[in-house]
Every structure is written in structure tokens, then in C-alpha cells.
């Protein structure tokens, strides 16, 4: 038999330079856009305002204010209180919900899980100002109650409003993670306990609950970190009640005191790191692996009493949690709301006004979000592929890039970028580039994780088979690997883009007049009390993110809830 002429003469194996390039690129990116600004910010925190970073200027003065200044002390304790209570409230809401959905045979379970993701998709500050529409001084419910019962409701502004809005905005993290763990846990273990004569309550207490403690802890940690770093909600609902992020914003916006802001940011991060430590401790004390990978789903209660109770609870929680989104959409169609209970004039006037006069923020958001998404896709895909397939020496840098933005609140990244890129080697403040880069550091992990999971699903032998068929690296990538991970890339990209549309905590520090985004526009409307315009803009953002995320979930054949669950 005659061999088909392939390559005349055997060619030498070429030097494999790609892993080295990827390693160098990853490290350079991490050093310049993450480590450098962070080091600048840390350094800045130990230098008095306006002084250059030098040995003789080092001082603890910026931290001293946490002992001397009333507003600093208050902000610190408020942050801690808000973080802990919002996390507890979110957990109290989420645990029964998770149990009801995972273990009671209630109808529409898939729809419920999908709906529960909605608060995560639309930024919580959009929810925050809808509480003003409902419960503010002139709010719908406030007025209704005042009219019917002649009672003045307590103010929504302050800790009560902040905690409620944060808990309702972030509880789905606990819900999704715990529900996933409950649904996946081995049913035979509980059956074994029942065979040994344990009561239902005893099983719940001694078997079921301990087995999901790590999941609960992980969910609570995410809520705590998110609540601690949230800027939008306390700045809208906080009023005089300051927390660390609003204090940072105040230092920068009021005094442009970057050094003070950096010090506060460090304290904020210290709290987050402390929470991570607690999680690690909880998980170390309970090290049990799931012993079996049982394909069988866990049992669900089918009694009508249990179904009714669980169903009602789920309905009530979901209604309250989604009330902000519903309110925003409804109120965006209200043109005038003079006087009484019912809105008087309905129409598209808000949209017309917002979109004709202020279409620039929408365009800006699309440009900034789109560019940042593109950068994330390239970086995230290449690194995820190489982490899964090859060993390369920049591993630590990559882990840092993936983990750090998760720990750092957006406002902290914002401060670091302000400090790092305001003067010195690279000056970027006020440009679109700084926003794109900040978005990139905050979101690259989404693509990375999505693609890493997808590459993990692909048998490495596929690439070997392609090579043995005679294909070079580029052909193997183009014809085998990329088609197989394309859905994961696209889904990750859509999630990045969608969540960037509502990004406020980084944007608020780094935007310039020319590069105002949708979220900033909404924020400014809310601050200047133009709630209907804010609602119109908010509806645009909610609808855009919803459409995008639904599209993403359809593409990968995974539900939105699974995508969010994997972030924990």
C-alpha cells in the first residue's frame, strides 16, 4: 500500500514556546494591572495625604483615625453590623427556601430556581432605590399606610433599609449553593439513618444539616463579602448611616484624599480576609468527602401539608425578593404620580426622555463593557486552556488574578487603580482604558472558570488524536478545541458583559464625564430624586441583562442558577 505523501522529510520537533509566552503574559498582566496598583495603594495607605511614597514619610496616621475619628469608628462598626446582619438575614431566608425546593415536591421547581437568580443579575442598587419608591418618604406603601391607617411608617433610610436591601439582593447565593448541595447529597445515607430508627427531625438535625454546613458557610461567605463591599445600596439607602465603602467614596469625592481612602480600603479587605479565614476554619473542622457519586436524586417530601407550607413560603420570599425589580419595571412606565394611591398617567415618556437625551451612557456601557468582555475572553480562554492542559511557570500569578478580585470589593480595586495610575509610570485616570482594565481584573475569573470547566470536560486524547492525524497546533485549536469550548466562552462572555452593565462600585471611582455609564446615570437620577427616569434606565439595564443571561444559559444548556452556583 502506498502512503500518502504528508511532509517530505521528517521535520524536527519545534521548541514549544507557547506555554512560556502564556506564562510571561499572565505574569506581566497580573503584575501590572493587579499587583502594581495594589502595592501602590498599600504603600499609599501608610503615607500622609499629598506626600510621595518614601521611607521617611511612612506613618500610621491614616489608620489612627479608626481610633480617633467618630465617623471612622462608626463606619467600621456599621460595616461589621451590616455585613453580619445582612448575611444572617439572607441565610435565614435562604435555608428554608433551599430545603423547600430541594426536598419538598412543590410545583414549578425549575422556574423557582430561575426566578431566584434574578436579584443576582440586576445590580442590588437598582433594588435599593425601588425600596425608596415603595417605602420612601413619598413611597407607594408609605402613602397607602398613611392614608388607610393614618400611621407614618419608620424611615427606610438607615441601617434597616440597607440591611434589608442587601439581604434580599444577595440571599440567592446561599440558596443556590445549599439547594445544590441538598439535591446532590446521597439519599442512601438518610435512608440508612431511617432504617436505624431515626425520626425525620433527627435526620434533619444530625445527618442532613451537618452535611450541608460547608455549603452554607460558602454561601454565607459570599454574601458577607458582597455586603461588605457593596457601595450602591448604602449610598442610596444609608442616608447619614456610613459604612466603609461610602466612607472611601466620601474621602475621594469630598477631599480626593487617596491615602485615607487606601487605608480604609485596607481595613475593608482585612475584614474580608478574616471572613475567608473563618470559612477555611469551618471547612477544616468538617472534612468529609462525599463518598459516592450517586446518580439517584434525593427524596422529596410529597405530603400535601408539606407541599402547601413549602409552596407558600417560597411564593412569599420570591415575591418580596423580586418586588424591587417589579417595581422598577412598573414605575418606569409611570409619567406622573401626583397625589394619591394610583399612578395617574402611564406611558413611554420616561423611556423617550431617557433614551433621546441620554443615550450616551447606554453607548458608553456597551463600548466599555464590550471591550472589557473581549479582553476577558482572550485572557481567560488562553490561560484556562493552558492551566488545564500544560504546566507553566506563571501558575501563582494566575491564581492571584483569579482569586484576588473575588476578595477585593470593587471600591477597593477602584482605589488601587486611582492610586496606581494617577501618576508615576502609567497615567490612566479619566480614560476609558482604566475602566476597561478595572473591569477586566474584576471579571476575567468568570471566563476563566467557565472555560476551565469546559476544557476539563474534553478528553485530552482528542488533541493527541488530532496531532497524530497530522494537524498542527493551530488546526487542532481551530477545528477541535475552540468549537468544543465555544459555548462556554460565549456563556462566560455574556455573563461578564451582563454584570458589567450594572457595575457601579468600580465605575463610581473611575468614570469621567465623558465615560458615564448606565449605572452611573441611574445613580445620578436616584441621587437627584428623578426616580422615574432612574426606573426607565433601570428597566433598560434589567431587560438587557435578562435577555443576555437567558441567551447564555440556552447556549451552554446549563441553567443560570448553575452558572451562578459555580462562582462560589
Amino acid at each position: 500500500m502506498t502512503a500518502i505523501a504528508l511532509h517530505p522529510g521528517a521535520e524536527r520537533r519545534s521548541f514549544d514556546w507557547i506555554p512560556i509566552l502564556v506564562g510571561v503574559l499572565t505574569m506581566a498582566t497580573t503584575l501590572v494591572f493587579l499587583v502594581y496598583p495594589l502595592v501602590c495603594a498599600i504603600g499609599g495607605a501608610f503615607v500622609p495625604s499629598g506626600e510621595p511614597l518614601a521611607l521617611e514619610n511612612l506613618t500610621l496616621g491614616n489608620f489612627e483615625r479608626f481610633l480617633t475619628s467618630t465617623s471612622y469608628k462608626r463606619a467600621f462598626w456599621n460595616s461589621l453590623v451590616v455585613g453580619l446582619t445582612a448575611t444572617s438575614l439572607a441565610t435565614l431566608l435562604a435555608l428554608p427556601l433551599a430545603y423547600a425546593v430541594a426536598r419538598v415536591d412543590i410545583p414549578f421547581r425549575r422556574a423557582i430556581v430561575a426566578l431566584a437568580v434574578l436579584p443576582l443579575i440586576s445590580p442590588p442598587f437598582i433594588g435599593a432605590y425601588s425600596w425608596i419608591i415603595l417605602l420612601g418618604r413619598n413611597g407607594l406603601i408609605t402613602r397607602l399606610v398613611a392614608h388607610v391607617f393614618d400611621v407614618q411608617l419608620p424611615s427606610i433610610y438607615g441601617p434597616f433599609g440597607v440591611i434589608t436591601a442587601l439581604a434580599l439582593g444577595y440571599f440567592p447565593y446561599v440558596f443556590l449553593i445549599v439547594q445544590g448541595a441538598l439535591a446532590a447529597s446521597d439519599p442512601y445515607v438518610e435512608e440508612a439513618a431511617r432504617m436505624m430508627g431515626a425520626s425525620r427531625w433527627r435526620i434533619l438535625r444530625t445527618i442532613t444539616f451537618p452535611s450541608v454546613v460547608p455549603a452554607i458557610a460558602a454561601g454565607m461567605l459570599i454574601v458577607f463579602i458582597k455586603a461588605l463591599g457593596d457601595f450602591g445600596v448604602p449610598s442610596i439607602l444609608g442616608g447619614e448611616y456610613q459604612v466603609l465603602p461610602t466612607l472611601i467614596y466620601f474621602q475621594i469625592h469630598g477631599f480626593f484624599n487617596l491615602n485615607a481612602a487606601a487605608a480604609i480600603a485596607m481595613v475593608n479587605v482585612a475584614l474580608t480576609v478574616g471572613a475567608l479565614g473563618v470559612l477555611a476554619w469551618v471547612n477544616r473542622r468538617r472534612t468529609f468527602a462525599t463518598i459516592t457519586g450517586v446518580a439517584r436524586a434525593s427524596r422529596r417530601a410529597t405530603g400535601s401539608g408539606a407541599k402547601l407550607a413549602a409552596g407558600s413560603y417560597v411564593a412569599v420570599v420570591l415575591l418580596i425578593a423580586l418586588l424591587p425589580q417589579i417595581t422598577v419595571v412598573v414605575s418606569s412606565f409611570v409619567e406622573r404620580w401626583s397625589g394619591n394611591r394610583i399612578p395617574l398617567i402611564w406611558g413611554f415618556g420616561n423611556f423617550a426622555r431617557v433614551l433621546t437625551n441620554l443615550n450616551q451612557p447606554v453607548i458608553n456601557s456597551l463600548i466599555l463593557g464590550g471591550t472589557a468582555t473581549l479582553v476577558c475572553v482572550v485572557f481567560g480562554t488562553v490561560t484556562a486552556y493552558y492551566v488545564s492542559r500544560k504546566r507553566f511557570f506563571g501558575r501563582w500569578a494566575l491564581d492571584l488574578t483569579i482569586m484576588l478580585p473575588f476578595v477585593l470589593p470593587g471600591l477597593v480595586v477602584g482605589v488601587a487603580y486611582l492610586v496606581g495610575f494617577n501618576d508615576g509610570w502609567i497615567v490612566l485616570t479619566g480614560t476609558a482604558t482604566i475602566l476597561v482594565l478595572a473591569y477586566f481584573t474584576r471579571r476575567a475569573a468568570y471566563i476563566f472558570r467557565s472555560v476551565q470547566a469546559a476544557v476539563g470536560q474534553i478528553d485530552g486524547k482528542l488533541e493527541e488524536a488530532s496531532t497524530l492525524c497530522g494537524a498542527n497546533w493551530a488546526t487542532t485549536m481551530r477545528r477541535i478545541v475552540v468549537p468544543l469550548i465555544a459555548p462556554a466562552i460565549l456563556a462566560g462572555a455574556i455573563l461578564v458583559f451582563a454584570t458589567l452593565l450594572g457595575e457601579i462600585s468600580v465605575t463610581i471611582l473611575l468614570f469621567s464625564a465623558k465615560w458615564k455609564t448606565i449605572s452611573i446615570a441611574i445613580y445620578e437620577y436616584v441621587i437627584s430624586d428623578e426616580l422615574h427616569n432612574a426606573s426607565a434606565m433601570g428597566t433598560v439595564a434589567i431587560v438587557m441583562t435578562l435577555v443576555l443571561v437567558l441567551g447564555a444559559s440556552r447556549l451552554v444548556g446549563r441553567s443560570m442558577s448553575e452558572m451562578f452556583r459555580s462562582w462560589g
Partner: protein
Amino acid sequence: MNARSLRVGGLTKRFQLPSGDILAVDGVTFEVAEAEFFTMLGPSGCGKTTTLRMIAGLESPTSGTIVFAGQDYTRVDARHRNIGMVFQSYALFPHLPIFENVAYGLRVRGMAADDIQKRVTRILDLLGLGGLAERHPGGLSGGQQQRVSIARALVYEPGMLLLDEPLANLDAKLRVQMREEIRRIQRELGIMSLYVTHDQEEAMSVSDRIAVFNLGKLRQVGRAEEVYSTPATPFVADFIGKANFLEASPLGEGRFRLTNGTTVKPRLALGLPADEADVAGFDTVVMLRPERLRIDTAGGKVPCRILRRQFLGGIIRYSVEAEGAKLALTVDAPRDIAGTGEGAQAFLDFEERDAIAYASGR
């Protein structure tokens, strides 16, 4: 060996792991002739798959050479070797239909579309996959996926075909059927094939020659009959078929004394010094195949007690404890013998020409 043969010389692969180095393949040397079906056999971790992957170009050898058809392949990139490979997991491209999976190697070579059509159709027909061209791999049975994988590896007429445990994921019946089919196609195309398996029956049934690996070293190469009847080491004897070992001490002149005092003169003594004077003091074993042992109630070379008797249809399998030898032996007898129930006392007997003595190294 002829001009189109494969010569592997001193092939060595050292893996560097954080926990220390592992010598996965240790100085392996062999030659495979054109159109030969050559099987690398051994337990898992013996280095057979690593050897195959080095021949494929998927691993680079630490040292040693791979020469195919007179050309040094040692440092040639895998994609330039013109080798077909069948993986245990099949490694079919899940997003491409069967036709495109098979056509892949031809498209990479830039072949004209109608030539591709012709070749792919021909190879699919050869493997009985004619009607499946438009289907995707996910919709195929394990056996069908395996055929596609073979078709994909053969369609560009590679210089050799490598098969890495290709039947391991199939059920027992299909395994037997597929191995016959692989052998048929290999003969029909006359392609040199290197086959990796840990299943000695599979190896013996299809191979021209078998290479037995253990702990990274090549222990023996030969036809199935040779390897079975004259295993080079106790390991090979035990791995290929069943083997019984009786402890013995060398007496010189090819004679050995068993622990019960019986003296035997086996057909061969392997691993012992050539000089008779140095033989004394060596620990040795005498190896006997179960079907070469006889059980006799009247008398024989070694007295024994029957521990277990299993009726298996064609044969009756006895587990016995030879007195003094303190070993569990297996005896395959063609028919029942009166007075050989469990617990009975009997004798083992054998022909001296069926025994082989080894330096036991224990």
C-alpha cells in the same frame, strides 16, 4: 528484519515528579517487522503505554532511539510521523459527524474533496459503518465508536497503527468479536500494528509476537507459544497463563531437589550461573503449568492434600497443598478421579520435561 521495520533501541523514559523520579520505561529494545502484529503486554504501570506513546511522539524519550523505515523518528514531531492511533477512550471528535471524524486526517493533508469522499466511504465500508456517516459519535454504541476510531486512524494509510488498550471499554462478548475484526483488517491492509493490552488472552489470540513488560523493563519477546512454553522469568510464567512454583535447591548437572526430597531434572534452568560450581546455594523454584500436573491417589513425585475441587465443565480444577512445599497449587485435570474429594490425601505427578527451573531471586 526488512527495510520498513521499526527499531526501538534503549528507549528510556524518566518522569520527574515532586515525589521523586519514576523510571517508567527502562532501556527497552525491540524490532517490529513490516505487516507484523506486535503486542505489548503487562500489568498496569509496567511501561507499555508509555512506550507506545513515545513511538507515537506524544511523549519524548529521556534517552534511546526510535527508527522507522531507516529514518530516525526519535525527535520528530508526532504530527509528522504519519502514524495512526486508536485510543482506549476512542477520542472521537464529538462535534463532528462520523464522516468528518474519519476525513479529518485527509483534510489536514489537503486532499481533494472527491478523493476524500472516495477514501472515507471505502474505509467506512471496510469497517461496516456504511450507514453511519452522517451521525455524531454520541449516538453510536461503544463498538461502533471503536470502529470509527480505527477507520479514522487507517484512512490516511499510516506507516503503522498503534492501539492503546482499544477493547478495554467494551463488554466481554464484543471484545472477542472486535479483536478478531482488528486482526482481520490488519491482515487485509498488511499494516504494521503495535497493540497494548493487559489481557494475556487477548494478546495471545491476535498477536504475531508478544512483548511482556514489567516494572518498566521488557522481559521477553516471542510468539505466544514460545512465551507460554518457555517463559524467560517467573514473572512472565505467572503473567502468561497460570503457573505453580515449587521451592527447590540446585544439586548441579541440571538436577534440583524439591523440599520433600524428590529430585527432578527440569527441561531448562534459567537465570542460574553457567558454571556448575557456582550453582550451589542459589534459591530456585521449579515452575509447572496446571495442565501438566496430574493428580494420582496411588503415588507420584509430591504428596499433597486436596483443599478445594471445582468442577468447571471441560476441566476440574484442584487447589492442593503440597506437603513440605506449603504452596497452593492449581491442577487442571481433564476428568474426575475417584478419591480426590476435598480433604483427601493424594500425590502430584508430572513429566520432568514439562518443568522449568528459575533462580527465584527471593
